[in-house]
């Protein structure tokens, strides 16, 4: 890679790094994993820059890569967990990941007074199906307009609106369960 290309790529990384990291950490709910996947997102951006046709804005395109990489990571983790379950049945000790209680994740950007409640929210988000999770994170956490979310998810704005409504309904059910579980 030439020095000029590195310089412009450096500018691109600087400009988009916080929104990539913020999106990825909301999906993965782990600081270390989010750092790793953020790097993977920019490696993919670098490799695919030539394929970028400019049909959407570059930030929308980067959001799409971030979402895909995050979902890929979560699928891989799920597969490993399943394998871990089999290992446990075979007599291996329970992996640390499985021992975590709901509400373990502290998003670094959340205001101090909201931290405890946000832990419950992220635990509930974790249980959502992929498309509802994506729509909810991009709308409520990233603050993207529904039209842009539709481009990122390759669907219509109406479908995004429906996904957000369904996500909120599912979250309410999950939060109700947490409400009683915490002893109220």
């Amino acid at each position, binding site marked *: 890679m030439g020095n000029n290309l590195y310089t412009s790529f450096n500018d691109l990384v600087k400009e988009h790094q916080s929104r990539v990291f913020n999106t990825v950490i909301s999906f993965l709910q782990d600081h270390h994993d*989010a750092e790793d996947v953020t*790097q993977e997102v920019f*490696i993919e951006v670098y490799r695919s820059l030539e394929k970028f046709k400019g049909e959407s804005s570059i930030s929308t395109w980067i959001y799409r890569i971030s979402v895909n990489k995050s979902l890929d990571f979560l699928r891989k983790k799920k597969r490993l967990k399943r394998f871990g379950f089999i290992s446990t049945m075979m007599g291996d000790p329970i992996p640390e990941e499985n021992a975590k209680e709901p509400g373990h994740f502290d*998003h670094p950007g959340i205001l101090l007074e909201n931290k405890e409640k946000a832990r419950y929210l992220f635990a509930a988000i974790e249980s959502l199906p992929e498309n509802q999770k994506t729509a909810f994170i991009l709308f409520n956490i990233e603050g993207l307009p529904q039209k842009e979310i539709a481009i990122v998810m390759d669907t219509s704005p109406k479908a995004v609106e429906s996904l957000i409504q369904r996500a909120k309904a599912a979250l309410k059910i999950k939060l109700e369960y947490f409400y009683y579980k915490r002893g109220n």
Partner: protein
Amino acid sequence: MQKEQWINEVLESTQGMQKAEPGPFLFEKVTARIEKSKLVPIENENTSYFKWRFLIAACIIIVVNVFAIRSYLNNGTSPTASEIQNTGSSAENNYNYSTIYSY
């Protein structure tokens, strides 16, 4: 009522949140991984080349074994060394006969 209020507060707990920032040297880490990955495709090519060779060899071995087992099952017994020798010599004889031209 209290429950509804708590659920709504939880749902709104992301309001006013700030963007989380990745650790320092992200660009340097990314470029280092890109440079490192440039070496990997050569290794991968070799690996996939050997993988194909191994697969072809394995297929040949399997096919040969299947034929051997099938012929063993059809004949009931495996041919003895003397039988093989006889078969070889009769073939040799046939060959000799066929090359005797009596024009």
